[in-house]
């Protein structure tokens, strides 16, 4: 027995790690809470590096794209070449600022439209795995961000805050397999629960087979989950399968917001209307 254990020590440790992880994960599902000390520690250590790499990558991309663009235009004259380089660097910086400004303006208009207090946040990092769709933003509890606050862009719902840290926060996207949003179809007012599938699209579940659903229908929030405000655009129906086994249709939804390329978003300080007594 002891011989077998010592011979297969690593295999036994693997099995113990898997079992212990399942117990750990189950306990997190039973009692969901804020970020743990371990997560805070790792996030705190990694955050400055992530921001630096993000900045460096952005700068390198700008310079490289600019080089490709300008390489055929730069005159042979050294003075003009130098002048061109300087102007190009200025131009790249200004274009970047202009682009950011237009995004912020869009968010500002959105903030005024929704009527809820909100704060803009910049995306500095993304999910390190391909399994959980989430983004890391540069606003945290110090800025008033709290758990479950909705995040939006001009084109629709992005997700909600799941892990607020002091200077940053983790936002779970609506395409995350753990995300569920109470939604309805704008045209027919049919209700359903929108869940993510981890691959960039969503599924509108619990839609009765007799319900009126068509491709191209706009999906909006219903506000029934008391997390997201009502009537936020969420996605567009791409396919409807009424022949799927079970009582419900399988409705696939493509998010209206380009979740793979978000750079700035708005975190809303939304509080659901009090329930009537």
């Amino acid at each position: 027995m002891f011989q077998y254990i010592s011979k297969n020590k690593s295999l036994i440790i693997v099995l113990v790690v898997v079992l212990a992880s399942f117990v750990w994960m189950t306990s997190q599902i039973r009692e969901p809470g804020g970020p743990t000390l371990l997560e805070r520690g790792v996030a705190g250590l990694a955050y400055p590096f992530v921001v630096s790499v993000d900045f460096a990558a952005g700068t390198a991309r700008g310079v490289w794209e600019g080089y490709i663009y300008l390489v055929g235009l730069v005159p042979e004259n050294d003075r003009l070449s130098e002048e061109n380089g300087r102007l190009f660097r200025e131009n790249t910086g200004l274009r970047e600022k202009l682009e950011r400004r237009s995004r912020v303006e869009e968010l500002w208009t959105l903030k005024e439209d929704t009527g809820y207090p909100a704060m803009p946040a910049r995306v500095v990092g993304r999910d390190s795995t391909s399994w959980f769709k989430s983004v890391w933003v540069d606003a945290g509890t110090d800025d008033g961000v709290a758990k479950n606050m909705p995040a939006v862009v001009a084109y629709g719902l992005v997700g909600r805050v799941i892990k607020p840290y002091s200077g940053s926060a983790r936002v779970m996207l609506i395409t995350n397999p753990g995300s569920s949003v109470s939604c309805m179809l704008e045209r027919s007012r049919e209700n359903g629960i929108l869940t993510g599938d981890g691959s960039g699209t969503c599924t509108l579940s619990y839609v009765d087979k007799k319900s009126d659903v068509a491709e191209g229908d706009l999906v909006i929030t219903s506000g029934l989950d008391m997390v997201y405000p009502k009537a936020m655009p969420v996605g567009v129906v791409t396919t409807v399968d009424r022949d799927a086994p079970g009582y419900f249709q399988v409705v696939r939804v493509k998010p209206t917001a380009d979740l793979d390329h978000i750079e700035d978003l708005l975190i809303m300080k939304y509080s659901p209307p009090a329930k009537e007594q």
Partner: protein
Amino acid sequence: MKNIRIPAALILAAAAIVQASAGDALSFYGVKPSLIFITIYALSIRAGEGRGLLYGALGGIIEDCLSGGLLGLMLSGNAVAGYLAGRMGKRVYNVGEVANFIGIFLLSLTQGVYVSAAIVTLISSGDLLVAVVRNALPQAFMNAAAGTFLLWLIDRDAPVMRFLARLTGRVQVHPQV
């Protein structure tokens, strides 16, 4: 039980940071290679199953903390992958491009099936087969392609490294007999 080597731990942390900040730049049709997984494979295949398990667990817990998912999911998934990579390294005599591609693909698929099963069981009530086909399979292909290329790139005998060696003059390539 083996110990984790500090440089290996730092490489894993660096891979996690690059993945979290610039990983989307490598995305192809929404699938991005997992630099952490490739690093775990590269470290474990030479280190054996004991250290492979540790590298996998360390890379996994960092990935868990930076992904916003369930803590323990990538830890266990990557620990299994690291352990298997370590075992594979002991049995494969010549770890070349073909062995790397097949190895990374199979290990990544195994890890993907495990993670998909855990997600379907614990978080969402989706279909396991759909999750595997949509997520795990493309991820395994992407990891295998990117991993094989990266490992070829940093191989001492690869043209790039030979060119650099010639350039710096530090290593004599093809010494005259």
